[in-house]
């Protein structure tokens, strides 16, 4: 699926005639279409923007309710930029509020206990834990730009729309995030007790 284009293809149901494929795309997707196509990724983005998994569902619901409420005012230009803009703001407000239950990222490891006997899974869990700890160390603007570009694969223009910063600024933040992460991962690699992995 081409993720780089601003508008998403309309939801196609089994049984729709092919004639409708040729029809001009609607300017705006409907809410159910948006939910079906994007909810999973917005949830993922919330987590990678620093929302712990135990609160991610609540916040994703909040994002969806906001999307639903504000969809009528969407100008139809960049859907993903608009969606992720809401996501970024919700995540930011959450992290800044007093109600955040701060927990160490290691508890994010999915069912780590089941992976003890499976080295590849264990390694993947460890890598995830490493990068999450590293992400926690870099500042929010850089982290956001990095997550949206690398993980969610938004275009620079979409990120620009989502965070309200110029293209060049977004570019700089991504570069800076990568360098900062590299540093954090290197430090983590060299300080790991008995670590046998090569870093870099």
């Amino acid at each position, binding site marked *: 699926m081409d993720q780089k284009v601003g508008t998403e293809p309309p939801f196609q149901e089994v049984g729709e005639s092919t004639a409708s494929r040729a029809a001009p795309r609607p300017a705006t997707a409907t809410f159910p279409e948006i939910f079906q196509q994007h909810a999973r990724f917005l949830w993922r983005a919330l987590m990678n923007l620093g929302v712990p998994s135990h609160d991610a569902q609540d916040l994703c619901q909040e994002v969806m309710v906001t999307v639903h409420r504000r969809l009528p005012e969407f100008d139809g230009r960049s859907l993903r930029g608009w969606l992720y803009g809401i996501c970024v703001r919700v995540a930011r407000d959450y992290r800044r509020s007093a109600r955040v239950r701060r927990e160490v990222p290691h508890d994010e490891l999915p069912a780590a206990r089941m992976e003890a006997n499976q080295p590849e899974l264990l390694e993947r869990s460890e890598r995830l834990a490493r990068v999450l700890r590293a992400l926690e160390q870099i500042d929010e603007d850089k982290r956001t730009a990095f997550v949206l570009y690398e993980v969610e694969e938004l275009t*620079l223009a979409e990120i620009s729309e989502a965070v309200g910063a110029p293209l060049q600024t977004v570019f700089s933040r991504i570069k800076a995030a990568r360098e900062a992460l590299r540093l954090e991962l290197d430090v983590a690699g060299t300080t790991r007790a008995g670590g046998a992995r090569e870093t870099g």
Partner: protein
Amino acid sequence: MKRVESEIELERLLASDDAELVASVSALRERGPDAAELATLASRLTFQGIDVTPQSAPAARGTWKKWALGGAGGLSAAMLWLGLRALPPAVSSAPGQAAFALATAASPPGSGLAQPPLVGSLGSPGARALAEPAAPKEQIGEVAAAPSIAESATTAPPEDAPPASTSRAEPRPEAAAIGALPTARPTSSAAPARAGASGVGLPSPSAADAPTEIELLRDARWALRQAPARALDFTDQHARLYPQGKLTQERELIAITALVALGRRTAALSRGTAFERAFPASPYRKQVGELLQ
């Protein structure tokens, strides 16, 4: 959205072959909800009156009707919820209405049959009739109607029913599932026994007859309007049957609303405070906050 050359150039500059970076990004990309969690989210949005089931173009109402009658239990539930919200409240202050009103719908409580926009987009005339019961007695019958609609689907599941999701392993799976039609209730049974039964004074139902979370809370919310004490019976029943329920926040919101409607401010305050502590990120925290004022 047109991409300007400078954007393309910048993205070219960002090309990287850093293996560690690629592996880390790959790990981040694997995070996210599983199917059950998404289904729960879908249920909770449906519970708020926000439909998440895709439909074909508005012209194709026949298709929608097939879904409604073919046992899309979650969709029928959503209709009933929306129908509920459009009815005039029995109590003038209608805290229950405030708790679940959609921001866009914004039909004031006293607006009678003014339908929020979503109902319009869902409604084929036959289905709309289901959403407009006239009197309390009929309303209870309304609630029973939904199970029997869904029942026809349990014997012959719709051909595009989703594969059994992991949530089926739970006491009662949610009605709404992402990526497909809302699932019919899998063991819908004894609908007349449920309809109108508050559960109080009756022997506890066996697992096979147990109402789903959505059914219980739908009954609870329905009762909020005319009989808040009865709403509390339903929420107590939900808490007993589903101590780790997916719709726990929704239950608590209904219970707190009922307590406020009953004038039991101390109990409401204590339960509301517990809610705020347990669910600091809740999408309902604003409603709870308002109820406690």
